[in-house]
């Protein structure tokens, strides 16, 4: 669905359709597409015992509105998406890296980030070695 509608739809899912448990928020990178990223929200409802996936596509550099105001659990999940893909969530209370160290360059789960790549400069400054490999 259109990325500008996501917040409204999530809000509806939470309050009208009673999807009260946000299982996961994640992203998939398709570098060849114009809208490079799929953002996937996995929701579960305790009332209906049902799970749904809500997907949207966004371009590189496009922002999304945060879901922290709807589900508190979105806090760390969105931070991880930001850390791994560099997707910015507007209105997030504390959007910073969560698994990678602060100051790391690059977003590892993007497809254009090779598996052996690392932030050489960061490694040199913080670990005092030329290469971690």
């Amino acid at each position, binding site marked *: 669905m259109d990325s500008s509608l996501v917040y409204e739809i999530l809000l509806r899912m939470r309050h009208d359709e009673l999807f*009260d*448990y*946000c*299982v*996961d928020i*994640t992203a*998939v*990178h398709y570098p060849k597409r114009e809208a490079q990223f799929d953002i*996937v929200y*996995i929701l579960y409802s*305790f009332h209906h*015992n049902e*799970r749904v*996936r809500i997907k949207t596509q966004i371009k590189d550099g496009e922002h999304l509105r945060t879901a922290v105001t709807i*589900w*508190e*659990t979105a*806090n*760390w*999940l969105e931070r991880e998406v930001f850390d*791994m893909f560099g997707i910015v969530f507007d209105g997030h209370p504390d959007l910073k*890296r*969560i*698994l*990678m*160290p602060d100051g790391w360059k690059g977003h*590892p*789960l993007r497809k254009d*980030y090779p*598996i052996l790549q690392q932030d050489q400069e960061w490694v040199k400054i913080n670990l005092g070695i030329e290469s971690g490999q």
Partner: protein
Amino acid sequence: MTDSTRTDYLDLDTKDETFLDATELVLNMGPQHPSTHGVLRVILKLDGEKVLGTECVIGYLHRGVEKIAENRTYAMFNPYVDRMDYVAAVSNGLGYCEAVEKLLSVEAPPRAQYLRVILTELCRIASHQVWLGTHALDIGAITPLFYCFRDREEVLKIFEKYCGARLTTHAFRIGGCIYEAYEGFEQDCKKFCDAFLPKLDEYEELLTTNRIWVERTKGVGILNPEDCIALGVTGPVLRASGVKWDLRKAQPYESYKDFDFEIPTGLHGDTYDRYLVRIEEMRQAVRIIRQAVDGLPQGPIMAKVPKVIKPPVGEVYHSIEAPKGELGYFIVSDASTQPYRIRVRPPSFVNLQALDKMVRGLLVADVVAVIGTLDIVLGEVDR
């Protein structure tokens, strides 16, 4: 040797009001701290000994499992999942194999499903034993640790006999199981069940009515059901708050619908209730193992799966009830031999987020108890 008259590090000309009158103190706990169960760093904001707020710093054990997955074939990635929650490796493998099977639209044969259930439930017991031992040790009771590890050894022996590994087992394959139950497997499981229940009573004798234990855990780290759901907390932590929800019953996978078992729940959502819930879960696991061993069907243990696994284009989300909570795998396939994307939804990562809410207003010593009761494994938090 310290020189008590040394004052050059103090600026005596200006009165240091921030230090003397400060009511807030920032204290760093971890990452090298025995009670953080690995490399978890918690920054505590304190007023005296009262916790005003916390911030978790994680990622010290980040190995990029999801990135590795994109560069391995489906079968090659299977052993990696064991290294996430290394205390409950069998459950991780089960979740992954089932997710790929769902993607391939195959189902493991009945005998494999029963074997999987037996091993997963044994694994649940082993995981809860590690939790109980370390949690009690954190609070100051040393004996349960020895009792738990002694009895966990029996589970590990069964794993070792079954698949040759004790910890990171790689017991299951996509499509079923690769190993047939060894000679005497059923007897070993039954023997373990018979011997384990009295041992469980022993643990309870040590702790359940122990005054120190009760005072350190009752009313500590309370989570009400609404907060649990908002924070996405699952597993025994959620059930201790009174929400009767277990994926084995809510959306049965494998052969769990064949077995008769209860979902224990708590009333108050405090550390003591979480303890009782996990103890009862071990009893229920024994019940499941006994039923599964008695009903173990004959037949093949491997479904027809192509040698080279190439699932059709598509995506799948599958989750199981791991000992720590909902463990989910979101797999995107582009019809090649390697997964396009694998996302692991780790229960520990999400549960750890509740720490801040649970410890506000408590003492520093209670933070240790609450980290223990959340039952996190940093290998899974950081992946």
